[in-house]
């Protein structure tokens, strides 16, 4: 499919609908030459599949971090007409509201240098990490409240503040979440896990502001001081979200038959946007989104408490304020300008970050490399349904990483760069070795060059915690 693509400009590539007779609309890839050279033809094949779905709105866009996924590539956005289109559990993926909370501080690198190891060790004790990590919080009969209220529930129960909610996508609570649409099995999985990081590519990082590109935005967000300390937390809706996705994939597979929808790939399970199967999924997904917002804010509270313990000051005096909190696996009903007219559409972001004008876009790098905070733009509204990339993307399987890297060596190499790392076991460090990922800098240059989310600051790790 890649051979059918045409260069539009230095940062955009067209996958014309003429590439395949079933395609209803064009696809597009955002990326510089290096990204285009790297992207797999199969990834573009998946993009073309989504271009065939009913009610799809032009263009289905792959972002520079796009890689082969299930149905839709990871690192892509697809939008559908609210009447004629579909809502798809397959397009959102399994880790609903996998996302990032970024926190700033007035601490400088020199203030934490002597206590960096202690800080990482204490955070590791406080924030439950790893597969099956046991939460300190048991939701029991409160689970429905969390699903309905999200991060608002967290604030009402003493985790985080109203100011945190103001700095969270959707105010930390998607309206219209209906816990009755979530299976008992999903709730059972969710009860013990709220306030846990999980494993895999999820992480908690202590970072420093390494470079400032946009002084004005950086100042407004309180991250204009080079070498000031920040925190980045990356995780999602845990087992609850995975179960919601699994449950509705099955329901929507049946819906595909019921409504006679032609699918080029079974993994694109979906249902008409106005059908029960579409709306029930949307309500259940919102519950998982809310759970994840609460999950990350609860951990933010524990991170603040740990800083207080290690540095002997209250968190307010260290100004450990939320820069922003975002989702990068989500379906949203949003108003966009389509063919010159304002229209409500369902935007599916899979491994994609909302990039609305002047709002922070949080992009995670890998252990030992850089992360970035960028800024959404009007150009993103025009070109990518207000969306940008979410990270670096894997270049090597976990199995290959385990063969290629040893956890102890990964840890030593990080330490040589001044990065203290801690993981539940060596294996998870090896699996997430920086060398197993693509170069995040090319990804960032692409979204910057395309104008969909110019760079504001670059962040580099000082300490890393892996599940």
């Amino acid at each position, binding site marked *: 499919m890649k051979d059918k693509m045409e260069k539009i400009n230095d940062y955009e590539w067209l996958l014309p609908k003429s590439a395949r007779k079933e395609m209803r609309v064009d696809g597009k890839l955002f990326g510089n030459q290096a990204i285009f050279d790297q992207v797999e033809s199969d990834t573009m094949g998946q993009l073309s599949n989504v271009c065939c779905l009913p009610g799809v709105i032009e263009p289905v866009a792959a972002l520079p971090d796009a890689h082969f*996924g299930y149905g839709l590539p990871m690192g892509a956005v697809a939008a559908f007409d609210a009447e004629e289109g579909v809502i798809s559990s397959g397009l959102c993926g399994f880790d609903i509201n996998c996302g990032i909370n970024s926190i700033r501080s007035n601490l400088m690198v020199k203030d934490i240098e002597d206590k960096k190891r202690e800080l990482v060790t204490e955070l590791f004790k406080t924030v439950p990490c790893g597969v*099956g990590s046991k939460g300190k919080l048991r939701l029991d009969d409160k689970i429905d409240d969390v699903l309905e209220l999200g991060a608002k529930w967290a604030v009402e129960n003493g985790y985080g503040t109203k100011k945190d909610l103001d700095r969270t996508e959707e105010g930390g609570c998607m309206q219209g979440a209906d816990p009755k649409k979530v299976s008992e*099995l999903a709730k059972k999985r969710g009860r013990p896990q709220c306030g846990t990081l999980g494993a895999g590519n999820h992480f908690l990082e202590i970072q420093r502001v390494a470079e400032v590109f946009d002084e004005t935005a950086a100042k407004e967000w309180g991250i204009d001081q080079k070498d000031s300390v920040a925190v980045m937390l990356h995780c999602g809706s*845990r087992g609850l979200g995975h179960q919601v996705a699994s449950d509705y994939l099955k329901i929507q597979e049946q819906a595909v038959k019921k409504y006679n929808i032609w699918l080029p790939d079974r993994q694109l399970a979906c249902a008409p946007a106005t059908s029960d199967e579409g709306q029930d999924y949307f309500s259940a997904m919102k519950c998982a989104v809310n759970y994840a917002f609460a999950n990350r804010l609860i951990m933010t509270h524990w991170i603040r408490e740990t800083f207080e313990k290690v540095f002997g000051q209250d968190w307010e005096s260290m100004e450990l304020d939320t820069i922003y909190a975002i989702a990068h696996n989500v379906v949203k009903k949003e108003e966009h300008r389509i063919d010159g007219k304002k229209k409500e559409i369902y935007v599916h972001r899979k491994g994609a970050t909302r990039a609305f004008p002047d709002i922070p876009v949080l992009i995670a790098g890998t252990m030992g490399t850089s992360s970035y905070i960028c800024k959404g733009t009007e150009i993103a509204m025009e070109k990518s349904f207000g969306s940008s990339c979410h990270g670096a993307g894997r*270049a090597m*399987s*976990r199995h290959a990483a385990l063969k290629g890297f040893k956890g102890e060596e990964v840890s030593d190499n990080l330490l040589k760069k001044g990065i203290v790392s801690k993981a539940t076991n060596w294996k998870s460090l090896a699996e997430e070795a920086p060398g197993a990922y693509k170069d995040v800098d090319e990804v960032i240059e692409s979204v910057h060059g395309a104008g969909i989310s110019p760079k504001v600051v670059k962040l580099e790790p000082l300490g890393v915690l892996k599940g």
Partner: protein
Amino acid sequence: MKYEYIDDITSDVKFRAYGNNLKELFENAALALANIFCESDKIQNRKTIEISVEGTDRSDLMVNWLTNIIAEVDIEEMFFCGFEIVEVSNTILRAKAFGDDISPELGGTVAKAVTNFNFELKETKEGFMVQVVIDI
């Protein structure tokens, strides 16, 4: 061979499990999955749970069985070291799963879900083979 991991998927885990009969096939597929979560050979057999699942056919039953094991890791907060299929047909399965409370230092990674990608369950000369891709 009970099962093997196929290293051709960049971001996830693919395995093939084998069995001379359906019982062995379901047992070995479960072992391949359990070994993603943890070093299952180091897990003690201290706790037993019972799992019953249904499916519309063999493939659906397999997906539901594996999905159920993923859920039980969260719910029971345990790692598994072995499975015994008590009864299996094309549409019903009853089994026992053995293991211990989770110990994070023996943990691997979180298996998020069973996907449809490249899924295949077929009869072979020796018995059965299933190929599964797990989203992690």
